[in-house]
């Protein structure tokens, strides 16, 4: 989850109230975020990803001061008319078709504010902007720019400027291989014939979104008072909201917002647009979902505390809120303002019949029988690796592999259980013998008939290991289990490369093979660096259960 760092003094000034640390922590918790830590003047808080508007000192303080009742209701932001224009060339339509822009004036930048602007940009990029894929943000000192600005696309080698924090002029292609930001975001332009750029009236390139700004025009300093802000991406609505989040924060820093006219050739759009949204909210719905009995006044009061306005059964929603999709979102905000800790729990008197899954019961009974035979149950991972499943066991077959496992030792779903138990024995060589272990677990096989193309079955594996573990010992366990289950079985000698020839059998129930049983081959024992004989069986519980509950053929 994203975190942001707040300067305690700035935050308190914005909120308009000082709170002791424990109260601050408590209140922040119940606003729905989490206080990570307080160190000196720095407060680090977690922000839920549905609230990008809280990813700045200003946005967080805005929500918080409403929540504690300091400044409630909809905050009004307005953009002044201006002559600033950005023309959007149709060449960008194939690479990054939209932008939303604004100008904010009169911010006296100090180091604290510069840090804050960088934080807003960074946090929005990572979360709401999906690592700049969905939204890329540029903020520029206005004095370095001559309007009108153009948003256009050019071939990579026709783009030449000096990227941020470098001293040399490069082509776009060079930036993508040489500059750190270029390398990090090159994949976002992969396969594109042309790259998007912002160019001013002096033909000075301001930036190449979503990668990098120009060092000359794209850097805010202590001398900066006014800024030009742009968001670029693929969905104008998303861009407008992101722009509003940023400029509202800049306005809270003391800036004045000015409109920018975007010329999309066929239509003109003016941004930022702070027109609030509206959504119907019914008292009945709120009370039904929350189990409360709130009056209209209370609902209104709680909505105001969450930064909305409310009139005539409608909530007025700030234009920078990205998370209100449905009236249910308003209901949650009402619940937050009401206070989660104020809800009284209730268990309704509803009659339902409990039912344990029958197969789960069966598996538990099998485990109980084995425990009665002195077996210890293990609990291993579903994930393992191909070598453990095949080569080490002296066999080969196809496994269900993962595409992207971080850990190469665990990149395949297990296809049988015995290898896992042998690994357990391997890791316990230094412990007391005899070792008699079992596990019931899921195994995975390719099967095109299934919804996912993978069939899952539950298997039981049992291994006994000591100086003289043999076929008799494991067969005794198997036979005891089947007598307890009251199931008749047949035993047929078979071949299986993991077992010693002549000491391995296939177990059948009503003509269907359900298990292998035998002594593990010394080559396999050697492959695993085990030092004691092992006898084992593996039984398909899914099939066995089905056989036990089907009507036998006459």
């Amino acid at each position, binding site marked *: 989850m994203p975190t942001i760092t707040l300067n305690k003094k700035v935050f308190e000034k914005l909120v308009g109230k000082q709170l002791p640390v424990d109260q601050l922590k408590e209140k922040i918790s119940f606003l729905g975020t989490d206080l990570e830590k307080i160190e000196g003047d720095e407060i680090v808080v977690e922000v839920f990803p549905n609230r990008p508007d809280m990813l700045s000192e200003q946005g967080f303080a805005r929500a918080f001061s409403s929540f504690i009742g300091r400044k409630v209701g909809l905050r009004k932001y307005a953009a002044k008319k201006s002559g600033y224009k950005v023309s959007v060339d149709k060449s960008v339509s194939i690479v990054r078709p939209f932008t939303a822009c604004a100008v904010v004036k009169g911010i006296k930048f100090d180091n604290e504010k510069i840090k804050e602007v960088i934080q807003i940009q960074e946090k929005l990029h990572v979360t709401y902007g999906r690592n700049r894929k969905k939204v890329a943000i540029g903020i520029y000192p206005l004095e370095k720019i001559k309007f009108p600005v153009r948003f256009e696309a050019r071939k990579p080698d026709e783009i030449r400027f000096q990227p941020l924090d470098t001293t040399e002029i490069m082509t776009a292609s060079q930036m993508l291989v040489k500059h750190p930001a270029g390398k990090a975001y090159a994949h976002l332009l992969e396969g594109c014939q042309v790259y998007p750029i912002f160019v001013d009236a002096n033909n000075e390139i301001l930036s190449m979104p979503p990668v990098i700004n120009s060092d000359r025009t794209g850097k805010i300093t202590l001398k900066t008072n006014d800024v030009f802000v742009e968001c670029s991406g693929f969905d104008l609505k998303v861009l407008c909201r992101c722009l509003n989040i940023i400029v509202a924060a800049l306005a809270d820093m003391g800036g004045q917002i000015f409109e920018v006219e975007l010329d999309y050739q066929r239509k003109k759009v003016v941004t930022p647009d702070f027109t609030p949204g509206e959504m119907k909210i019914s008292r009945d719905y709120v009370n039904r979902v929350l189990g409360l009995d709130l009056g209209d006044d209370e609902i209104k009061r709680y909505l105001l505390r969450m930064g909305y306005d409310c009139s005539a059964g409608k909530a007025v929603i700030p234009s920078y809120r990205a998370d209100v999709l449905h009236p249910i979102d308003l209901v949650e905000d009402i619940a937050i303002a009401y206070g989660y800790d104020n809800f009284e729990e209730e268990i309704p008197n509803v009659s339902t019949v409990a039912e344990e899954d029958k197969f789960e019961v069966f598996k538990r009974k099998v485990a109980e029988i084995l425990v009665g035979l002195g077996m210890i149950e293990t609990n291993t991972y579903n994930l393992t690796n191909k070598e453990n499943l095949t080569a080490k066991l002296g066999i080969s077959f196809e496994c269900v592999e993962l595409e992207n496992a971080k850990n190469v030792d665990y990149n395949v779903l297990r296809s049988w259980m015995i290898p896992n138990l042998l690994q357990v024995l391997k890791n316990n060589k230094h412990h007391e013998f005899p070792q008699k272990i079992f596990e019931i677990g899921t195994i995975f096989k390719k099967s095109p008939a299934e919804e*996912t193309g*993978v069939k899952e079955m539950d298997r039981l594996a049992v291994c006994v290991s000591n100086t003289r573990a043999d076929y008799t010992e494991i067969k005794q366990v198997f036979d005891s289990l089947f007598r307890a289950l009251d199931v008749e079985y047949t035993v047929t000698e078979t071949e299986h490369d993991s077992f010693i020839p002549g000491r391995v059998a296939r177990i059948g129930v009503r003509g269907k093979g359900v298990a292998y049983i035998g002594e593990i081959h010394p080559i396999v024992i050697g492959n695993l660096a085990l030092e004691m004989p092992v006898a084992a069986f593996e039984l398909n519980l899914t099939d066995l259960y089905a056989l036990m509950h089907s009507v036998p053929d006459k």
Partner: protein
Amino acid sequence: MHDLNRLIQTLHPLERVVVPVLENDIDVAAITKKTGLKEVEVMRALQWLENKGIIKIQQILKEIINLDKNGALYVMEGLPEKRFLQTLTEEERMTLDEVSEKAHLTKEEVNICLGLLKKRGAIEILPRMRVDITEEGRLLFGKQSLEEQFLKRLPLDAAHLSSEEKKAYEELKRRKQIIRTDLVKTRYVKLTKVGEELSKLKLSDQFVDSLTHDMLINGNWKDKNFRRYDVTINVPKVYGGKRHFVNQAVDYIKRIWLDMGFKEMRGSIVQTSFWNFDALFTAQDHPVRDMQDTFFLKDPAKGKLPKKDIVDGVRKTHETGGHTGSTGWGYSWNREEAKKNVLRTHTTVLSAKTIAALKESDLPVKLFAVGKCFRNETVDWSHLFELTQVEGIVIDPNANFKHLIGYLKEFFLKMGYEKVRIRPAYFPYTEPSAEIEVFHPVRKTWVELGGAGMFRPEVVKPLMGKDIPVLAWGLGMERLIGEYYQITDIRDLYKNDLKQIREMKFWMK
């Protein structure tokens, strides 16, 4: 005297054999010899006797002189000087080379012999490297030297040598690998006051040690006394069969939900993204769907989508909100993305599938599942790639947020957590959403144990055709039970160390 009798009754058969031979300063070797027991048996008996306050076992280090490599050889073949002389008694005036060959002596041994025998006047050296035996030599050859006698007597205690032995010892010590001294631990016995008294008594053999089948049949236990045991004695550990401790807890957790009238759900681990994400209103560009976080399958990489009306409902909900009254996420939904197979990231996928299969006439219904879910994590003390989730849903036209808190608090109370609180949270598929925290009595902080909420209309309506309240939760089981087993490193839950499993306390709730 009473105490002494009682003490006698406790003596083990081995002790009864050992006690009569005990005297002060007798060592273990001597006891072994006198009793005819094995040394381990004697040691065990002595240990028990010491525990009973009858003796004290003392221990000293002794320097013991033993034969070394050459010494062992010389004991069998004779000392080199003896063999040297012998050769000369058989043939007169031999060259040194002849002597060396006949007596099987190395050049080095010959040199030692020359020096030694000359000093004792046993040989004379003649010109041209020849030697001959003197009268003195013949005399010497006839009797056993001190050295020879000494070697035959080994091993000897270096602290108790006679003056002659000392002389031989000094002599031999200088020569190559004939003798060596070893430090040997010797245990011997000191009798305590009780021990002194006991050793004077004659022990009766009328004690029954083990009660046997035969004794019971022929009744001859009746005129005997039973040996008294030391009932406080430690016994060897035995281990029975055992369920894995995590599974013991799983069974209990299932029991709780069953007791509250819930029905169990089961389902696959491999799921399509459609059920794991899309049906749960998780946008296709949500970060959880990145390769970073979720395991995708290489082959089969894609699965099948369910029937058309469900897919269409979900698609429209994502794109525009469909008939749910929502704005949707406002993007173009991709079927292929939804087909991608994943290892389920939460058991909530089972809830989604269950809801899709329910009819309105089935309601109200309460369901739970305990199952593995998967995150593409690098493993460390607090992260695993496989985790167990406790899932529950209540689908009830009259359910509300207060009921959600009610069910959860009841569950946690049964798990032993009395202080539980609910905080706001965010999940794409629930609204209102809540995080459940319990108060950690030792750490004095709130610890997060799971997520909960009411399914969004965007989840319920496309699957059920109607917006009905659904309470839902997914709790991390590992954190929930780690406390009970005093496990702080999450990896220890699944390390499958047999000693750990054998000795782990039972789940006693």
